[in-house]
């Protein structure tokens, strides 16, 4: 994962660069919640973002037949997907789309993010810019919604967690390869939730420095 940590050290990151990724999500069908206070257009120091409920998203409207054909997903699958949000932003001529899902763990609200696609604008899913030869993973952010017009995302401080895990001070299932500096959290959903239950209030993991404030666009 130094691939991730090399990425992490780049200053140009959108939110913050020291996020850490996990193979498994923190959310299951029975744990997903919605909070439509997060929907709408937001701006931050890094740019502008659009958050849409999945079923009302441009992404869904453009690709529903391609994705689902005549039979939309049912059961738990549909619950997960239909309660998720599509987050879209543009940067230097590239359009990025991620799927975000919310859950509450203890007293905290968390968002799980996974990429959907990146494409040169005007976008085409036939010409994805997503890196080949890779798997997609989840990032985790704690959300603080102070009012209807402002929210803060605190991503997990990946550098801190990495150091703690390597030093044996923090236990969470992971894989690490020294030669290629690969590091990924492989803990199960249940373990991840236990971890967040334990450390959800830990300001070393969810520090102010890793907080990104978003203001609703009028």
């Amino acid at each position, binding site marked *: 994962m130094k691939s991730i940590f090399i990425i*992490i050290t780049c200053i*140009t990151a959108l939110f913050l660069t020291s996020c850490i990724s996990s193979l498994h999500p923190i959310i299951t069908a029975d744990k997903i919640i919605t909070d439509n206070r997060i929907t709408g257009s937001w701006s931050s120091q890094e740019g502008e973002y659009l958050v849409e409920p999945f079923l009302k998203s441009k992404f869904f409207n453009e690709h529903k037949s*391609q994705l689902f054909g005549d039979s939309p997903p049912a059961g738990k699958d549909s619950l997960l*997907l239909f309660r998720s949000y599509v987050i879209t932003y543009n940067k230097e001529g590239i359009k990025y789309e991620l799927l975000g899902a919310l859950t509450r763990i203890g007293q905290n609200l968390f968002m799980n993010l996974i990429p959907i696609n990146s494409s040169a604008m005007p976008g085409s899913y036939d010409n994805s810019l997503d890196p080949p*030869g890779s798997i997609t993973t989840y*990032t985790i952010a704690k959300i603080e919604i102070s009012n209807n017009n402002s929210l803060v995302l605190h991503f997990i401080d990946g550098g801190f967690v990495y150091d703690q895990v390597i030093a044996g001070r923090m236990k969470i299932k992971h894989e690490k390869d020294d030669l*290629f500096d690969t590091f990924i959290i492989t803990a199960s*959903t249940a373990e991840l939730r236990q971890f967040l239950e334990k450390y959800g209030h830990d300001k070393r993991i969810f520090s102010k420095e890793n907080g990104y404030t978003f203001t609703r666009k009028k």
Partner: protein
Amino acid sequence: MKKIGILSTMLVLLVFLNSCLTTLHPIFTPADLVYKPELIGTWKIVENKKEKWAEINRLADADPRLLPGKTAAIKDKGYLITYKDSANTISERYIAFLARIGKHLYFDYYPAALPVTSKMDEFYLAHFVKMHIPYRLELQKEGGFTLSQLESGYMNELIEQKKIRIRHEKKEDEDIVITAPTSELQQYILKYGDDPEAYSGEKISFAKTINPKLY
């Protein structure tokens, strides 16, 4: 999260992940490495009736920023493999190491950043973890070589049928991610390296050439 997984599977370009085996850890240790200077050069590949080219260069000559982790220490035994399509556009690029495992030679491909990657948002890219892609390499008498991809479905079937024990994670969308360490991967290769069923599809043939578009 199955549908979320399906979404990403459908929409993310997983060209190499659909059927070929990929692993989180490399299939080699530095002690296994073999360096064959005759692989350096421009190679013509015909795949699915489409021509493309692979430029194989010395990793030691590559931009050091392309080298992940501690691979700079073994760059003298590595290759930078750049694939270009018929329009001379770079489509894929890999850091590759050739290793002898048992009686066969294997390439370990690891994705290297493409030119477009440098323009991409780092936060978005942080959601991707690069995987190793092993190929069996066979040198041809006439100077070319072939690559055979290990089939992921074959290993997955062995795992599902509990015929092998190899470290892995099953994702919510049922995809299996092989997290076995190098030693376990080598045991698999040693056991199944001669089994034709362990490999997918046709061999990819590389013929040395000069791509006029490159000069």
